[in-house]
């Protein structure tokens, strides 16, 4: 189990992680979602004892990382696939890791086999593709058969087959009862691979929940096609926002489909279409993080 306790990291004048306080449950895949530069990697480095928090703490099974007697047996992490000396062979890299935590060498061959690197185990890591390096990183994370696993942007650089493999892999790990914490800046990726999602922006917590919960909380809109759109528009309450679409339809926010139907009936306007529109997870994410983008960009203007 992984727990963040008012975790805060302040660099000179930037607040990279701002009072994060949540628990990551075992047995499910938890997505850690936020735009680039929102503090995901910093949070993961603090969990792994690499950076020190300014305030608060991160604990694994109740202990801070540097207090874990045999860390690789409790936490496995793939933070940066390239944090390996390129002139060392894959096998030697894993053996050095294994030796440091008294893990038998037989386990090195097991994990190499599991990630499909047995045939290149004696080759220098420097010659590996990003995908192979990712696999080596995963092998290292699994070495101590840990109950908590962290992956920072694991799908970066993977081909579609590799992405599918890694999704199934997360699922398997979670089904085995492990805590699986996966960061990504891609909502679409999290929507298919995570059960629970924690959203952060500019270092602070925005929201969390299952994919369904997140989309449900976002206010949907109602698409209406009426025989007379103008009279429908004037029949709407003053606080309802609407947008007239080119084809004569109205997109109404702040009212349910039921409300709109009742209003139209009361005003005697015939409706040709009445469709509640749920926000996609992507839209929810954009909405939630729009105000917290570290490096905001303008929509390119259309030349007139």
């Amino acid at each position: 189990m992984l727990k963040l306790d008012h975790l805060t990291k302040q660099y000179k004048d930037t607040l990279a992680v701002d009072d994060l306080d949540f628990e990551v449950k075992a047995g499910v895949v938890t997505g850690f979602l936020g735009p680039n530069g929102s503090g995901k990697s910093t949070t993961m480095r603090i969990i792994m004892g690499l950076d020190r928090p300014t305030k608060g703490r991160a604990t694994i099974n109740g202990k801070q990382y540097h207090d874990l007697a045999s860390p690789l047996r409790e936490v496995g992490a793939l933070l940066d696939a390239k944090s390996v000396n390129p002139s060392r062979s894959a096998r030697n890299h894993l053996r050095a890791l294994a030796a440091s935590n008294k893990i038998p060498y037989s386990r090195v061959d097991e994990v190499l086999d599991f990630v499909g690197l047995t045939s290149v185990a004696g080759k220098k890591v420097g010659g590996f593709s990003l995908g192979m390096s990712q696999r080596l990183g995963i092998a290292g994370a699994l070495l101590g058969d840990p109950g908590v696993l962290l992956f920072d942007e694991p799908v970066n650089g993977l081909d579609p087959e590799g992405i599918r493999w890694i999704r199934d892999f997360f699922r398997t790990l979670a089904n085995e009862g492990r805590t699986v914490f996966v960061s990504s800046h891609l909502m679409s990726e999290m929507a298919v691979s995570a059960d629970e999602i924690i959203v952060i922006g500019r270092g602070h917590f925005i929201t969390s929940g299952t994919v369904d919960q997140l989309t449900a909380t976002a206010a949907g809109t109602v698409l209406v096609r009426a025989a007379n759109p103008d009279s429908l528009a004037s029949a709407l309450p003053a606080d309802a926002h609407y947008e007239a679409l080119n084809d004569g339809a109205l997109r109404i926010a702040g009212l349910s489909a039921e409300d709109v139907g009742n209003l139209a009936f009361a005003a005697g306007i015939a409706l040709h279409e009445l469709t509640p529109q749920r926000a996609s997870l992507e839209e929810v994410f954009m909405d939630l993080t729009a105000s917290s983008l570290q490096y905001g960009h303008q929509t390119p203007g259309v030349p007139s």
Partner: protein
Amino acid sequence: MTPTLWSAIRSEWIKFRSVRSTITGILTFIALTIGISAVVCIAVKSHWSDPGSHFDHLVFDPTSTSLTGIFLAQFAVGTIGILAVTSEYSTGSMRTTLSAVPRRARVVLAKMAVLIAAIVILGEIVVFTAFTIGQAIFKGVVPTASLATGDVLRAVMMAGAYLTLITLFAFGIGLIVRTTAASIIVYTAVLLIVPIIVNFLPRVLQHDITRFLPSQLGSAMWSTSQPAQTFSWGLSSGILAAYVVALVGVGTYLLQRRDA
């Protein structure tokens, strides 16, 4: 099942022997120490009977002459010491290392243990080989030294000890500085440039400062009789060891404080 310092040492040993830079560093070290020493010994021998070489004869020390290669070899071992830590930063593998062994002081101790074991054994073998080859070259023409003489045995052994201490000295610089290029510059400056600068100081200061320079401490350690402007060989080794403790101490403190 709980990992110990010994587990960390085993891990560091695997890392030490499994990269090419270590192997090239060690081969360079062997070649420089033995090769340069032999070349100098041959040069001395071939000019021994030249007219006007009486002064050379007066200051001649067959032991330290047969170990001249150390002047270059100290840069080979220094580079090994520096790379033991800076290569972890340049490749990013420091993060992997510190995740596996979160007690950072333990990482430092393990790396030092590996360096000491490697350089003590290798260094002693290499200096005794260079000495033996040198005396064989001198034989018959130039006066030779024998290990049966107490000071000679001590000087050769201390030459190996100097190489080990200077490796750790470089390792300490690497821990503090963290990048390979900058560490090598600092190390080279301390060994080569600082003595030149000190030469321009008033003579009174020169005498006080020179004795404390690592290069002078080394000369005192591997000479059979105490050279000018040095402390005794025993005190010199102590001072060099104190430098190592200070540098590695500061380096360890910084490693513990800094974000990896």
